[in-house]
């Protein structure tokens, strides 16, 4: 079975809150840098969207090392949102992606709700703004005002961020809130951000974890805690997507696109998140294992849909809810 033929035969296009993407497969923020590196392995414009590393207002050095620990079928990272700051991002990274023809979903963050809004405003004024198909708001970062509790753990703080970011961006720009799985009730957080103007939600960010270095009997990461990702956490990601989609179907939460991320290593894995309710998927940690993974997942997904006789990707979104 030719995977390329599959990609042609199945209509892979999907809708991201008003913006049409040619296919649903994206990179995941922080797992693909800002494009140049992966462009050595595949054309970044071939993806549904390229999701950039979360950028904040100022340049950030990130944390000390070690920044990672391998875990069974996953890894723990504590990068600390290292990045160039929004100005350098708009001057260098975004124009590069635009020149390649990539559709860019820009991930932003702030230490305060106001900083999120400032980053969004800077981005809006970039010369390369027309390459931007949406803004992913990474609220899984510590809130300076609330003793470092992450925004995404608190519905009110999450909503405040979304309100302020929404104000700074054109009405037709999709604004996607990226949620943390480390909460008692992820439906409540999804409900809060969608109520505050988010166009959709991305789930999941990493799970908080600790690895102990048993030689030195101390935490292995320089930053003590880190984020757990990779295939190890896929069942948690599928569950989060399932719950929020189920709440939408039950009318408890406004219907909105969900971007699924967490542990996708293959087209089959992507299909799990899609069948649970995701309109698009992001390929994260597995890119470290296989730098061609995002494109491979697109091809495998297309081949799988064709083999199952589906003509359109959108016919499979959330299909598992109909087959209970």
């Amino acid at each position, binding site marked *: 079975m030719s995977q390329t033929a599959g990609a042609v035969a199945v209509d892979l296009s999907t809708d991201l809150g008003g913006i049409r993407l040619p296919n649903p497969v994206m990179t995941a923020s922080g797992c693909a840098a800002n494009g140049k*590196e992966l462009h050595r392995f595949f054309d970044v414009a071939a993806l549904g969207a390229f999701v950039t590393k979360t950028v904040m207002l100022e340049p950030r050095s990130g944390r000390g090392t070690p*920044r990672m620990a391998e875990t069974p079928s996953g890894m723990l990272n504590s990068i600390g949102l290292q990045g160039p700051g929004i100005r350098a991002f708009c001057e260098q990274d975004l124009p590069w992606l635009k020149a390649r023809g990539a559709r860019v979903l820009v991930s932003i963050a702030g230490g305060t709700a106001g900083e999120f809004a400032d980053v969004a405003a800077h981005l809006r004024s970039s010369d390369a703004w027309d390459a931007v198909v949406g803004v992913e708001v990474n609220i899984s970062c510590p809130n300076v005002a609330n003793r470092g509790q992450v925004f995404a753990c608190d519905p009110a703080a999450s909503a405040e961020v979304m309100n302020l970011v929404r104000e700074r961006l054109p009405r037709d720009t999709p604004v996607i809130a990226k949620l943390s799985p480390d909460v008692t009730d992820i439906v409540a957080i999804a409900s809060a951000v969608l109520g505050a103007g988010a166009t959709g939600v991305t789930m999941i960010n990493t799970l908080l974890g600790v690895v102990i270095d048993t030689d030195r009997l101390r935490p292995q990461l320089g930053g003590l805690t880190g984020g757990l990702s990779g295939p190890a956490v896929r069942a948690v990601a599928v569950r989060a997507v399932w719950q929020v989609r189920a709440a939408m179907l039950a009318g408890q939460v406004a219907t909105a696109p969900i971007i699924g991320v967490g542990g996708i290593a293959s087209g089959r894995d992507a299909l799990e998140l899609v069948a649970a309710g995701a309109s698009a998927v992001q390929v994260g940690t597995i890119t470290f294992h296989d730098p*061609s993974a995002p494109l491979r997942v697109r091809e495998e997904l297309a081949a799988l849909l064709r083999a199952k006789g589906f003509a359109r990707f959108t016919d499979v979104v959330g299909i598992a809810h109909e087959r209970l």
Partner: protein
Amino acid sequence: MSDVVQVTAEVIATRRAGAYHHLTFVAPGVAERARPGQFVALSVGGSSSAHLLRRCFSIHRVSPSGTYGGTVDLVISSVGPGSDWLSTLRAHDTTSMVGPLGRPFPLPKEAVATVLVGGGYGSAPLCWLAETLRERGCRVDVVLGAATESRLFGVGQARRAADSVTVTTDDGSAGHKGWVSDVLPALVAAHGAAVVYACGPMGMLRAVTDVAGATGAVAQVAVEESMACGVGVCMTCVMPVTGNDGVTRMVRSCVEGPVFRGDRVRWDAFDGGGCRVPEDALGASAMRAH
């Protein structure tokens, strides 16, 4: 798109080399592109593997054309699950290889004198470098050090490729008893070396940098930071390096290294098992805010 490839590499020969495993892979495309100092990233554990992250290994040498196509030689020290798995590979076993990666050792434009310093398996890339330097007319003196004799690598090859070879071991089981930094100053001075190339543990690289600095030679050191991706996308392999503009940045050793000018590395920030962000590094103040 053409400077790096991702291929299924097949083992065609394995042999022991002291404490190490020396493996030859058929890796079409990698050999043709590689230069001394670059490395490859291998996946480990096979198709059911619980190990997601690739393991990085310096390219020992390549032969761009052979009976089987281009081959890549690696020298593997078995220290954990990934390197253990690699060291049990037999002929015809395969694994995925990405490479060549990173920046090679910069070669001098003139035919200057050079000293090459290898610690443990850090000597793996040096013979090939020595040959390349000699082709350009450079004098090459080599110093190889290790904890003990079985952890030396490539002494015989170095003797064929270099003008001189000096061996040191911590326990005196071979060559001079002591560290490479004991014998290095005299060697650098002897022929007025302009460049000292080094590959090995961090402590050694720092010592080599100090020795080179004292004599006015440039140190080019190949570092070995823990790497999750090897291709520049994960930001785990960073270390503080000062740029031409005098600003220290946390740079990725997989794409901006693994070879750095020794005097640009902020050795002061390294401690035990990790590395702090120097207070004056670009973006360090934003970390203090939150």
